[in-house]
Every structure is written in structure tokens, then in C-alpha cells.
């Protein structure tokens, strides 16, 4: 029987703008996904530890402070180091178009920019993030 999808939603770095992350967490939860919301001020190390501990299928990470080019790839690097790169990573926030290709090349599956609807994110997750137990 297919397991319920488990996702970690978190704010990485010092950025405290959590309006979007909380809305996405709630939308995903309301769509039947199990959501672990880590809250603010998570280091990449903390996110990866929690993700592994909670045995999640994916990580949704948010940054609006401009530090995504360092933080998101760092997250992926740590997942690889800990043999957990089956956990898919996607993100959102204030991320210039020009940076998206680089983030995807680093292993981020998708980036959601301002104006994205909740429905778009939920649909994308259901189409692209499978429970790892399958």
C-alpha cells in the first residue's frame, strides 16, 4: 500500500519571512501530505538531520533574503554526504530567474517564485515527489 507522502518544510538561514512557507506547509497538509514544519533559523545541517530523523520524502525550503545560492546547494551537498540524496529538494522565495538554472544544476528539483498558487505547488509535489518507500 503506498505510504503517505512526508515532507519537511523549513526556513533555512537567518531569514524570518515565513508567510509563504507557512501557507505552503498548510496547503500541503490540507492536501493529505504529512508535513513537518521546522520553523525558522535552521542551518542546512539542522534541516538535513531533521529530514533524516523524520524519514521524509522531500524537503521544501524557503529563502527570501538572497542567500539561496549558498544555502540550497549546501543542503544538497549534506544530503549526499549522509547518503540521503533520495530525499528530493525543492524551494521557493525571492529567487531571480537567472539563479534558477544554477540551483537546478546543483540538484534542486524545482524553484517556485512569487505569484505561484498553492494549487500549482501541491500538484507539482504530487506529480514529482514519490514516497521513498514505493
Amino acid at each position: 500500500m503506498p505510504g503517505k507522502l512526508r515532507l519537511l518544510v523549513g526556513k533555512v538561514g537567518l531569514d524570518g519571512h515565513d508567510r509563504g512557507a507557512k501557507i505552503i506547509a498548510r496547503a500541503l497538509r490540507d492536501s493529505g501530505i504529512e508535513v513537518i514544519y521546522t520553523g525558522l533559523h535552521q542551518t542546512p545541517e539542522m534541516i538535513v538531520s531533521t529530514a533524516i530523523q523524520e524519514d521524509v520524502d522531500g524537503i521544501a525550503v524557503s529563502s527570501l533574503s538572497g542567500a539561496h545560492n549558498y544555502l540550497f546547494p549546501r543542503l544538497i551537498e549534506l544530503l549526499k554526504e549522509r547518503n540521503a540524496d533520495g530525499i528530493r529538494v525543492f524551494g521557493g522565495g525571492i529567487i531571480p530567474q537567472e539563479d534558477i538554472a544554477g540551483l537546478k544544476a546543483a540538484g534542486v528539483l524545482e524553484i517556485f517564485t512569487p505569484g505561484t498558487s498553492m494549487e500549482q505547488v501541491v500538484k507539482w509535489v504530487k506529480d514529482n515527489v514519490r514516497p521513498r518507500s514505493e
Partner: protein
Amino acid sequence: MTEDRDRKDLAATPARRSASRAEWESETLGGAPERDREFSTVSSLPIERLYTPDDLGPGWRPEEKLGYPGEYPFTRGIHPTMYRGRPWTMRQFAGFGTARQTNQRFRYLLEHGQNGLSVAFDLPTLMGRDSDDGMARGEVGREGVAVDSLADMEALFDGIPLDTVSTSMTINAPAAVIFCMYLAVAEKQGVPFDALSGTLQNDILKEYIAQKEWIYPPRPSMKIITDLMAFCARNVPRWNTISISGYHIREAGSTAVQELAFTLADGIGYVEAAIQAGLDVDEIAPRLSFFFNSHNDFFEEIAKMRAARRMWARVLRERFGAKNPRSWMLRFHTQTAGCSLTAQQPYNNVVRVTIQGLAGVLGGTQSLHTNSLDETLALPSEEAVTIALRTQQIIAEESGVTNTVDPLAGSYFVEALTDRMEREAQEYVDRIDRMGGIIAAVERGFPQKEIADASYHYQRQLDSGTKTVVGVNKYTMQESTRPELLRIGSEVEAEQLRNLSRVRERRDEQRLRNDLERLRAGAERGDNLIPLLLQCVRDYGTVQEISGALVPVFGTYREVSVL
């Protein structure tokens, strides 16, 4: 025109002159169709088809509800002449990269007609961290200017005598440290403290509620704030010690009523804390200031600002018994709503900002920041911020709205809406009082939950198309060109780390160590911390070293998230 004659909502009996609203509704309005079943503001506040004198209610009297400008309850404005005397201060928030780079942007803005400075600090500085802290990696200079020590502050105001400008500094958790750096720069420039004018945001309560930049828990944070109030009352008399903010609460997704209510509740919290700390309300209240958002719904924003003035005046005079009329006056800064701007078709943002800026002016703001068109893409480019500044100048010089005071007074709609905003905000303020005050309310997550619910509700409205954002869920198009954006290179971080090393090499380490120990001991004893902070700053202590010295005494804050 043919189209007008064919409209299905043409008056059924246009020759009639109805003697009452009821007659108008049954005879002239008839069954004329409307675009929707319900009409509401962007905050979902229901709006009626028509407002008449009846909507003011039987007890509505202008002497009581409005007063004259410059007189209690200040609904029409805090100055008798308002913009006929002097336009609002044009104060564009600015800051990026290193202090040297931001200094250049400050000088540019001053040359182009800006009247006051407003400093944006980077995220590590906002959180009380140094540029070389582990969590600062990737963040240095990106959201604002990196300030680690007095050396950066000196570079920031190079060539800008502090007695010639008023400066607003958007900083909260380490606000007292940054304020002391400003004072130390004044000392070096030979400017006496009583010649300094400006504002420190220093509003920690809204951090727990909305902006989420903190170090210590609420109660020790309030102690630092009351210390600063006392210090300024005696030594820096022209300084606004707090900018009690609704802006961030609104940006986090609150409604306009919630923005008004939670801001006033925070203000009440600060006055209560000051009184508990032994300060006299009239000593500190004249130097409290406010900061509101100006969002898209034109009339809702104007009504909110007018209601704010009336409510605060009553709170200070009746609840706190303030005797000095200056204590009753709500002075505020306005910023147009960042959260309303779009990445799609960014030039549309110039239009949004114009409407929002105009609302702030018709709401009677004392100073205004207009956002740049590239707000959702990056920090403002020089071209974008110039358009934003010109927007204010055109409103001030060409629109005519500054020719008279509070032009919208007496509008049935505006007065009814002002009263309604007051009524609904008061319900929240009363509720928070029953919880034991704003700190208690924050500790149980009340405002945070209200905001989360409001923001989720609005997002659902956008997703379903109930509320429109032009270019995002309606009138979308393929875009080929994009404005030229400001990029902060990674060399900024490298340069700042070098600056920081240099500062640490040059200073007297032992002297600083003693200063930090005196600071810690003073905190244990409950002394006023400002003079102790100032000494640490003079000896080139960093933001993190100084803020960190208080952690063993005050502890740190950890949020319990509310979705």
C-alpha cells in the same frame, strides 16, 4: 454613447428625486445588476453600495469624531497646516553591500531631493550577528548594509554631518547597539547628542508577531527598550525611540484592522512597560512614533490611518492620563506595501505604488517611503528608486492634494469606514487586554495565529480568482524584457570579512573585554545599559560580541511555530 444607453443597470426612474434611501433602492435602483454579489476591501471588509449621512450613525458629531487639525483627537491630522506647512519627509529606505557602497546611495538620494535617511541593514546585522558568523554565510550585504562595528557606521555616514539629516534606522533586536554606534559617530563628528534627530525602529514586540528578528525573550528585550527611552528622554531629546510598526504585521498577511489593532496593542505595551520602569508617560510618549503599511485598497488605508490617530489620542489621554498634548499625537511613517507588488510585469508596480503613496498622503503621514518597481526581484536599482522618489515629488508638487488639510473629511464613506476600522480594531485591543496584554497574547500565539489565518484566507482568494492581482491571476502575458537589476556580488562578503579582521586587529582587546564584562555585570544588576553599550561600541566591539555578552543574562528566544 450607445454603450451607456444599453447598460442594464441604468436607473429605472432617473427623473425621480427620491426623498429617502429606501425610496431610491426600491424605485431607482430597482433590480439593477451588479458585477458581484458582495464587494469587499483587499482585507475582506464588506463595503456597501452607497454611503449616506445615515451611515454615520445618530451620534456622529464632527466636534467629537474629528476635531480640528492639530487638536484632540487629531483625526484630521496632527498639525494645523499639515502639508501646507511642510510636505511629508521623503525618506527612502536604502542599504546594501558594504557601508561604503550604501554611503554612495545615501549621497545620491540626498542630492536628488530626499529629505531624510533611512537605513536598511543586512540580515546578519538585524539578527545581532557578525559577518563572519556561521549563519551569516551567503547573507552578508544582501538584504541591506553590513554593519559589524563602529568602523562601518563611520563609513556609512562619511561626509554626512549628523546634525544636518534626520536618520531612521530599521533595526530591532540589536537596536540599542546600533543606536550607540550612531551616537559614537556623532561624538567623532563633534555633534552633540541633543542635535541628533531621527528614529530607531526598536519595536521588538512586532518581531515576535511578524518580522521574526530577535535575540532575547520578550521581557529582557523590553528592559533594553525602556533603558533607551529613559536615556533619550534625558540626552537625545529629538530622537524617536521606537517606531511602533504595523507595516510588517501587514506584510506577514494580516488584514488592515489587525494591522491597526496589533500596532496599537504594541504601543499600549510599550507605554505600560515604561510606566512600570518608573518613567513618566509624558516624558516618553512624545517620542514614540508609528509606522504603517499602505496597501492597495485606497480608502481602507486612509480610514485606517485616521482611525489610528483618533484611537491613540484617546488611549494616551484617557487610559494613561497623559497631560502633554504631544503625548496624544500619533506621528507616523508610511511605506507602500511590498507584499502587493509583483515579479510579473514589474512596471505595473509603479502604478500600484502611486496609488498607495497617495493613500498615505491622504491619510496624513509624516514621512513616506515608496517602493521601487523591482521590489520582488532585488534591492532597488538606482533607476527604480529614482522613479519611486519622483512618484512622491509628483504627488507633492503636481496633484494638488497638498493644498488643503485632510481633504477627504466629511465623506460619508470615509467617515463611516474610519469609524468601522476603529470599532473593529478596538474589539481586538479589548480582547488582548483580557488576555493580560500584548506580551501574554504573543506568548500564547494569538496575533501570530490571526495573521496566519488571514494570510491563508487571502491566498485562497487569489488562487480562486476571488481577488485579482493584475498580471498574476488576470491579464497575464509572456514577458520578454526585464529591468536591469541590482546584483550583490559575493565579493561584498569577502570585503566585509577583511574589514572586520582589520577592526579586530587594531582595537585594544583587553579594554574591550573589560567593557563587555561591565556590560554583563550591569545587566545582572538591572542598570541602564545604554552608557555601558556605548562604551563597548567606542572600543570597537562588534554587534555580535556586544549582543552576545548579554545572552548569559537574558537568554535567547525560540519560537513555537503556529501554522
